[in-house]
């Protein structure tokens, strides 16, 4: 991701030049001839970024724009891939290839772009963003005329010393100071004659003007910004979230205008001939109603208060913890855009301000991963389909080029049925079972229903494997108590198979399986095998009695009294619907299991699989990255999880 | 009832919801022993009561609502509504607004006439039931029709945001203006469209239309300067010129039990409005190219054959295209003034105003009375097609005796194409 920066001199001062306004106009007009140029224009008395055709349209004296320039780097809608339905052809990525310029980026927006760079280029690097970013030429401009809603000063984003190719400062008298940020910026200046080196006095004038501008910031934080993350953590249950969000319309304006927001949705679109299709990425936001809703209808943030709380926490805490960069740059756009007048993070922080204590940031360790199959679906063929129940099927897949999925038990893949979309499915087989991997699927939403209509031989795209699987090293050598509810048995099966394939490495192996009814039992044949297998102790139950069932009746926790085991060297693994966690975890703790001995697999709405689109967030955690498997000790402080 | 043709024993025709017209209309014919026992053009369309529903509505919402009277001529309704409101409030639109409105109007005319001639009427001339089978047998023709419609949509979108139920067309002017670059591009497209238009003229030239003439009264707007679409006063072939505000003297609406749409009459039992009326009254003001097209197509004023209405529409298509290019040239020469309308600055007041435009199907009146708060106290709309219903009835009464002996199927077919020739907009006429 190297941008060739221009080093400062011994005092850290970057090369600076002076240009007259009319000569600056010539530079802009020259750029317009060479490439697309986005600049700040006046519209209806406000300011927006838009294509400019000549320097006359450019306004550098603006206070704030409606939409941030980061939204040019991440456009509202972009085509990620193009594909052909019904073939096994690898989808083709669509990448930006033409250079363009953005003129008029304020310092707080430069800081915001640094965050977007970190999010999209460091971990799971996004090829579309990278191509666009490398084609961008950024000309910043110092903000001497801050918006009335801006608190960039207190956020430390009122000035920026990097992140631009060139930075302009209006010194007055038709003179602009140009600070050079990169070699690319330097190369542009070399094409023009009408600039001269800036004197030390002129460079000092910039600092003086910036200092004078500080007095124009009218809004201030009530506490120092380093204390905001702790403040938010301590106030997670504060009734403030509910009262403040009463008037929220969930209209999405606050997230749409935010320079540090980048959550997105991914959809498939097709042509009417049903032959060509494309995968589209478009803006999404955590305050929108369906953001955390899964196909079964469960919505993990179904009320305004939880969505509002999440957004403020993301701006003030989670982003900082994950990326080490500010989640809110204090631009003020959201408070301008919010009709209900509740959006301002400043107002939220100040409202919660109280005596603070310092706390080291927990620091989530980022893993840099990049491999084929991360962003581009790999073609796999459906080898076999087994109908398990009216709503559930087991699919056997194999990659066309024969390579192994190479997953850990507990990981998931994103299955792409072209034209319909992608869905996250846990892998239901162990990696020790060869190049065929199995997926257990309940028909619920568009993609899973489409999967149920697939015939053997059909081709799908597979991305992944994603997420953290079951922590095998911490289970080896121990007794294992597995509790699976409903279709939680599918991901659990990957672990059961793994354990059976490596039986000597484990102590007692107990599997409890609970289901609504006898008909709802999936994997009936397998359960019959396991019932007979001396390597495994299986106990089953169904919630309500029914004809033909001679086994245990009652919720799954009613099986626990029958389990007599020594807890000291044991782990418990629980996988199932949200209600299972609510009842089972307490019982396990009563049995003596400590938080670090209890392992769960959580479901959330997952889309990109690479920790970017934002849908699977539980507070600051991305389920697709840090999960879906967690120990309870990891979730101790995460109140939203269970 | 007199015996017309003894040879014809018995004919019964019952066309329920005639196809390929806008809205719902029925034709019923009973002939017994050579006598016409019943011949009725019925309109069973469900009334929507626009004139009642806008009472109490504020002026800002009126044109939006009445636009919904019709999905094809929504621009005409919006325009007539706006002119009525501007007349009531004493607002005079700027020259630029007038030019843009004329241009926008041409877009609607183009779309409407292409739809009528190529999609609704052409199948009858080519012996099919719709354009869908033509997509395989005459793909070029279908694509031409859709291309021209798309061009008209694009022109309307450029000026008003959307063709069906325009958005930026408001009292006082426009809420958004095109820029010169977009107008230049559009002009090029319009010029290229003549290739397609010429094909349309050729197609229409090949049609064999029935030769049926019945002179009636012809009513249309007449403007001293140009072929009238959105300006001028009311002209009648029988009674001369009447001021738009006195439209009631011409329309004289009355109800008939078999029609939810009202009928009108002036000097005779019925009168005709629409492209043929406009042609008969104003043909001298057509663009030279349009007049030449009329000649090529055998359309000569005065023409009393209602089947030639479609031909008059094609002539108007040529005129509208030329006129559009002229208007764009004028706009480019003047430059676009940044006069975007601000709703809060419109001076509303109590008063009455009448707006009249030539919708594609004929002269359209909107008559509003406002109270001091700018809300509608009373409203009346007279729609082109409801002015044609009586004329359709009279045409049928004159036509059936001439074709009585041709058998039920042929008679039904000819009556249907007679109705279609009028390009009726029936849900509009009932409103």
């Amino acid at each position: 991701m190297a941008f060739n920066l221009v080093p400062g001199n011994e005092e850290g001062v970057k090369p600076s030049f002076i240009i007259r306004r009319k000569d600056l106009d010539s530079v802009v007009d020259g750029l317009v001839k060479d490439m697309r140029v986005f600049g700040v224009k006046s519209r209806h008395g406000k300011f927006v970024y838009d294509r400019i055709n000549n320097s006359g349209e450019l306004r550098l004296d603006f206070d704030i724009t409606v939409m941030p320039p980061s939204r040019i780097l991440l456009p509202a809608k972009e085509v990620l891939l193009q594909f052909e339905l019904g073939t096994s052809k690898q989808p083709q990525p669509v990448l930006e290839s033409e250079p363009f310029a953005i003129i008029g980026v304020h310092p707080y927006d430069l800081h915001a772009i640094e965050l977007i760079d970190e999010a999209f280029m460091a971990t799971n690097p996004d090829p579309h963003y990278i191509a666009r970013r490398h084609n961008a030429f950024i000309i910043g401009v110092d903000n001497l005329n801050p918006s009335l809603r801006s608190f960039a000063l207190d956020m430390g984003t009122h000035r920026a010393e990097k992140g631009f190719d060139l930075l302009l400062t209006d010194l007055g008298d038709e003179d602009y100071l140009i600070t050079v940020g990169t070699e690319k910026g330097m190369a542009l200046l070399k094409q023009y004659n009408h600039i001269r080196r800036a004197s030390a006095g002129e460079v000092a004038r910039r600092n003086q003007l910036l200092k004078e501008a500080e007095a124009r910031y009218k809004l201030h934080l009530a506490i120092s910004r380093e204390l905001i993350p702790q403040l938010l953590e301590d106030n997670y249950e504060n009734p403030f979230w509910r009262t403040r969000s009463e008037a929220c319309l969930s209209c999405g304006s606050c997230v749409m205008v935010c320079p540090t927001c980048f959550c997105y949705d991914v959809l498939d679109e097709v042509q009417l001939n049903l032959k060509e299709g494309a995968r589209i990425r478009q803006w999404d936001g955590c305050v929108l109603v369906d953001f955390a809703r899964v196909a079964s209808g469960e919505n993990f943030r179904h009320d305004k208060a939880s969505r509002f709380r999440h957004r403020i926490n993301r701006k003030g805490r989670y982003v900082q913890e994950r990326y080490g960069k500010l989640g809110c740059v204090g631009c003020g756009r959201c408070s301008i855009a919010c009709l209900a007048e509740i959006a301002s993070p400043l107002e939220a922080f100040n409202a919660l301000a109280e005596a603070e204590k310092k706390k080291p940031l927990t620091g989530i360790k980022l893993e840099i991963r990049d491999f084929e199959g991360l962003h581009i679906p790999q073609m796999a063929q459906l080898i076999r389909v087994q109908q398990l129940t009216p709503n559930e099927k087991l699919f056997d897949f194999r990659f066309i080029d024969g390579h192994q999925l190479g997953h850990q038990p507990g990981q998931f893949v994103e299955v792409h049925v072209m034209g319909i979309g992608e869905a996250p499915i846990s892998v239901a087989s162990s990696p020790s079972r060869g190049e065929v991997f199995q997926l257990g699927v309940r028909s619920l939403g568009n993609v899973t229903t489409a999967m149920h209509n697939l015939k053997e031989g059909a081709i799908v795209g597979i991305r992944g494997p994603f997420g953290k699987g079951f922590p095998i090293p911490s289970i080896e050598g121990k007794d294992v108590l597995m509790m699976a509810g409903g279709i939680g048995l599918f991901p659990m099966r990957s672990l059961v198979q793994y354990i059976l394939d490596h039986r000597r490495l484990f102590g007692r192996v107990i599997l409890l399986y609970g289901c609504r009814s006898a008909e709802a039992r999936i994997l009936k044949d397998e359960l019959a095998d396991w019932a007979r297998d001396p390597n495994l102790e299986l106990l089953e139950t169904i919630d309500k009695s029914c004809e033909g069932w001679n086994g245990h009746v009652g919720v799954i926790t009613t099986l626990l009294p029958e389990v007599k085991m020594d807890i000291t060297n044991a782990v418990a693994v629980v996988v199932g619907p949200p209600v299972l966690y609510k009842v089972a975890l307490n019982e396990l703790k009563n049995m003596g299991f400590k938080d670090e001995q209890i392992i769960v697999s959580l479901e959330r709405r997952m889309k990109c699989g690479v920790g970017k689109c934002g849908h699977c967030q539980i507070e600051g955690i991305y389920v697709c990255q840090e999960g879906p498997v967690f120990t309870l000790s990891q979730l101790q402080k995460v109140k939203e999880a269970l | 009832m007199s015996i017309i043709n003894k040879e014809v024993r018995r004919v019964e025709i019952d066309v329920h919801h005639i196809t390929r017209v806008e809205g719902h209309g029925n034709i019923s014919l009973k002939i017994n022993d050579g006598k016409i026992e019943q011949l009725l053009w019925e309109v069973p369309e469900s009334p929507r009561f626009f004139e009642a529903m806008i009472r109490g509505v504020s002026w800002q919402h009126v044109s939006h609502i009445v636009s919904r009277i019709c999905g094809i001529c929504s621009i005409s309704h919006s325009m007539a509504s706006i002119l009525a409101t501007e007349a009531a409030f004493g607002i005079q639109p700027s020259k630029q607004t007038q030019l843009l409105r004329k241009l926008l109007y041409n877009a609607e005319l183009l779309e409407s006439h292409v739809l009528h001639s190529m999609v609704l009427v052409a199948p009858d001339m080519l012996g099919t039931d719709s354009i869908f089978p033509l997509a395989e047998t005459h793909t070029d023709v279908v694509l031409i029709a859709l291309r021209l419609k798309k061009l008209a949509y694009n022109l309307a979108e450029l000026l008003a945001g959307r063709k069906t139920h325009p958005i930026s067309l408001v009292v006082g002017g426009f809420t958004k203006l095109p820029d010169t670059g977009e107008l230049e591009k559009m002009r090029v497209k319009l010029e290229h469209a003549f290739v397609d238009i010429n094909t349309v003229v050729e197609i229409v030239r090949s049609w064999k239309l029935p030769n049926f003439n019945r002179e009636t009264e012809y009513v249309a707007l007449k403007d001293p300067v140009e072929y009238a679409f959105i300006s001028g006063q009311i002209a009648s072939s029988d009674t001369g010129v009447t001021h738009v505000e006195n439209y009631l003297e011409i329309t004289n609406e009355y109800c008939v039990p078999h029609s939810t749409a009202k009928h009108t009459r002036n000097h005779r039992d019925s009168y005709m409005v629409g492209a043929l009326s406009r042609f008969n009254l104003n043909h001298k003001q057509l663009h030279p190219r349009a007049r030449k097209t009329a000649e090529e197509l055998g359309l000569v004023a005065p023409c009393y054959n209602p089947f030639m209405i479609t031909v008059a529409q094609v002539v108007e298509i040529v005129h509208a295209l030329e006129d559009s290019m002229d208007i764009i040239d004028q706009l480019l020469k003047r430059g676009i003034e940044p006069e975007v309308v601000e709703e809060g600055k419109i001076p509303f007041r109590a008063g009455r105003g009448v707006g009249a435009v030539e919708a594609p199907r004929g002269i359209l009146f909107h008559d509003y009375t406002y109270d001091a708060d700018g809300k509608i106290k009373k409203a009346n709309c007279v729609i082109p097609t409801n002015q044609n219903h009586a004329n359709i009835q009279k045409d049928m009464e004159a036509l059936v005796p001439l074709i009585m002996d041709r058998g039920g199927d042929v008679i039904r077919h000819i009556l249907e194409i007679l109705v279609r020739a009028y390009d009726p907009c029936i849900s509009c006429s009932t409103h």
Partner: protein
Amino acid sequence: MKPRVAFFEFTSCEGCQLDSLNIEAEILDLLKAVDIVAFREVKSGSSEDYDIAFVEGSITRESEIARLKEIRERAKILVALGACACLGGVNCLKNSLPMEEALKIVYGRDARYYDTIPARPLHDVVRVDHYVRGCPINTDELLKVIKALLLNKRPEIPNYAVCVECKMANNVCVYERGMTCLGPITRAGCGAICITSGRYCVGCRGLVYEANLESQKDILKKYGLTAEQISEKLNIYDSCAGVKR
């Protein structure tokens, strides 16, 4: 076998059906993908054997109820086309008057010849499977629904407010331009076209899921509207009680 598609209309301006034909190159693909067996405005001859029925218009007469129920019987899938069918549309504005009064205002002494009942959307009479909203519809959304039906997929229609699309379109907010707008409580899918054209949203696509009406009313009041003005604004498209989605 190609799905058999039919278009029907009740009380409407037929604008939504007309806009369904505002496709150019796609027409050939469309005719390859489906069989249009009934479309009165454009085609003679019709069939009563169809799989998918697109129905425009609201119900404003007794005689329409039976016909709608018949269509529901015959169609596997029924799609409400346009605001009149989805919500009732502007036809519902007459519902604020007693029917006799509406008849009298328009027809005077001859009112006795005609009949009407309060206007209502299709789902007040029959079960509706899908909605293509808007006044008029967005043709792209209709094509999206058709493609989804062909792929056996639930159409992905936005469940969020017009504000999202307005920001995507880089518009300056209507409230910052001295006017008011129902975008925050109206369902997106139109691309915020009215705002882009210089006007404001009047809610023709219906309320967004769990719309916060109280907050919207407070905001309108804050921006200077009286209770009467707020009511008029909200009622242009929301006059039919019982809007279910």
